[in-house]
């Protein structure tokens, strides 16, 4: 009589043998003390492992995990707003820099310099739209910038940057 293999005993205990093989093993175990002993050893492993209790987790892991999660991506709307804000702010900063540099460098009146820059800008970049505007009967493009207006522009830039960065910082904090 050949003895049961280790694989057969394991599969028997794991209940993965087909029904006929299962019955065959049962019959063999009933008549073979050697295999019964090996079976008992293996079965005791199953029993002993089942005695291991669950440990209690003493520390809440959630805050640590949540703090390390990456920031969720901004909604598309917010990304568009931030992109527009950045573009607008860069343009305004450029305008103000022109005024400031011109004032410091050549002592020319900031208002005159700004007007000149905007006129030039208008002529070069908006030549065709300007023509179109005239065709529609709209008034010409003119934006006189005074020193107080420059300060207002500076404030606007600051507010725009502040809003954008506050949103980004809040986003980072949520992460």
């Amino acid at each position, binding site marked *: 009589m050949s003895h049961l293999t*280790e*694989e057969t005993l*394991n599969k028997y205990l*794991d209940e*993965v043998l087909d029904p006929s093989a299962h019955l065959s093993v049962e019959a063999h175990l009933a008549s073979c003390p050697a295999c019964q002993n090996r079976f008992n*050893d*293996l079965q*005791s*492993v*199953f029993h*002993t*492992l*089942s*005695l*291991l*209790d*669950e*440990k*209690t*987790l003493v*520390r*809440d*892991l*959630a805050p*640590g*995990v*949540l703090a*390390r*999660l990456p920031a*969720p991506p901004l909604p598309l709307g917010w990304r568009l707003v931030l992109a527009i804000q950045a573009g607008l702010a860069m343009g305004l900063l450029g305008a103000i820099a022109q005024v400031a540099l011109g004032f410091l460098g050549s002592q020319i009146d900031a208002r005159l310099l700004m007007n000149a820059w905007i006129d030039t800008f208008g002529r070069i970049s908006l030549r065709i739209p300007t023509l179109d505007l005239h065709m529609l009967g709209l008034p010409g493009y003119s934006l006189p910038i005074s020193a107080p207006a420059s300060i207002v522009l500076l404030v606007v830039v600051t507010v725009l940057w502040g809003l954008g960065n506050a949103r980004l910082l809040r986003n980072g904090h*949520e992460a």
Partner: protein
Amino acid sequence: MSTIDDRDTFAEMIYQSQTAVYNVAYRILGNVQDAEDAAQETFLRAYRFRHTYKDGYQSGPWLKRITVNVCLQRLEKAYPTQSLDEDWLQPPDPHPGPQEQTEACDLQARIQAELLRLPPRYRAVIELRHYQDLSYQEIAAVLNRPLSDVRSDLFRARRMLAQNMKDLR
């Protein structure tokens, strides 16, 4: 889009399953600090790979399977040359303190100690088969290993445990 994309849902998932995940890690790693670290890493990895979670299914089994792989990788990093060695044996603490000495008498501690004497990959198959009740095929899929290797590891692990646990009976 997975429901885990919602951070509140994910936080709830952590609250509900952190003890189970911690226990899986503790059985494989054998100490509190490593198990807590592995549990945290499991949740971070779960969030990163949340697209693999199928809505409507229980998150517990999914998280536990990630935990097993996290633990195996940690052990392979800690013991790079020993992790696949069948003779792997965690060195015992040469100077156990009073608490350890007390625990050594405890059956729970003995079972845990015997698990820790197994090579990491044997611990993994024991964990997946005996504590998570996965089939051989499912274990092979979780560990990304051939079915024959998984069966072989499981049977050898049980043989080692049977030899080492004789005095527990």
